[in-house]
């Protein structure tokens, strides 16, 4: 049965390039939000509003796990895909 990874490996490189670009853009977006959260948490903790630090921590952790989950969809390297196609190890 074909799965996402197999379909992705057979896709045209233009498609995998777009996917790669999309994932990197999403990760940069996640990082920007996390920097903003850390800045707010620090500023508020110094102003003795510690509760915001907890909310920012939970948010930051969720964003981190979202980024980790996104890595699952990173396309394989072309080199590896080509090698597997040549040896036929993957689709036997």
């Amino acid at each position, binding site marked *: 049965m074909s799965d996402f990874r197999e379909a992705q490996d057979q896709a045209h490189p233009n498609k995998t390039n777009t996917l790669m670009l999309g994932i990197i853009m999403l990760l940069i977006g996640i990082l920007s939000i996390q920097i903003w959260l*850390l800045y707010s*948490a620090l500023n508020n903790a110094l102003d003795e509003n510690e509760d915001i630090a907890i909310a920012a921590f939970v948010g930051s952790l969720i964003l981190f796990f979202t980024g980790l989950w996104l*890595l699952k969809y990173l396309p394989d390297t072309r080199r590896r895909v080509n090698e597997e196609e040549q040896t036929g190890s993957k689709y036997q």
Partner: protein
Amino acid sequence: MAYEPKEENPPNWKRDFPIRQDEATHISRREFAKFLCLLSGGLALGNGYVVLSSFAFPDKELEGEHFVCNTSDVPVGGMTMFAIQGTREIPYILIHLSEGEWRAFEQKCTHLSCAVVYRDEVKKIECPCHNGWFSADTGEVLQGPPPRSLPQLSVVVRDEKVYVTAFNDTVS
């Protein structure tokens, strides 16, 4: 660009930074994405550290009275700097606002920790680094980039001697 057949065994630098788009889903971008994710984990940890340090190790309040100087040492409109012995080394300023009116604040600007100074001609505290101004009466921000008021101490004058204690709103 004209089509060129792929090289059989390209050198490492060509494999790492390919020109052709179909070879560009390459280890370098995969590693960059993973590095971004690692950074994201680092920021989440940093946020956890802020939580830990605010709840598990809160700043201790100053205990007892601490002698600063004699009242005759600072004229009206003057300022002196001091640090409290036996505590974490924090620089403070003592301001003689008017006859019998004293104020003590932390000397570190809440923006980037530059040393603030009292300007008697305008009766305000100035941070000369980025033109930040604080009220000499309450330590509130009046102008500029500082995001928070200056932390304050209470001043007690007894027998011509000036002491400071932890700030309590009801005292002033």
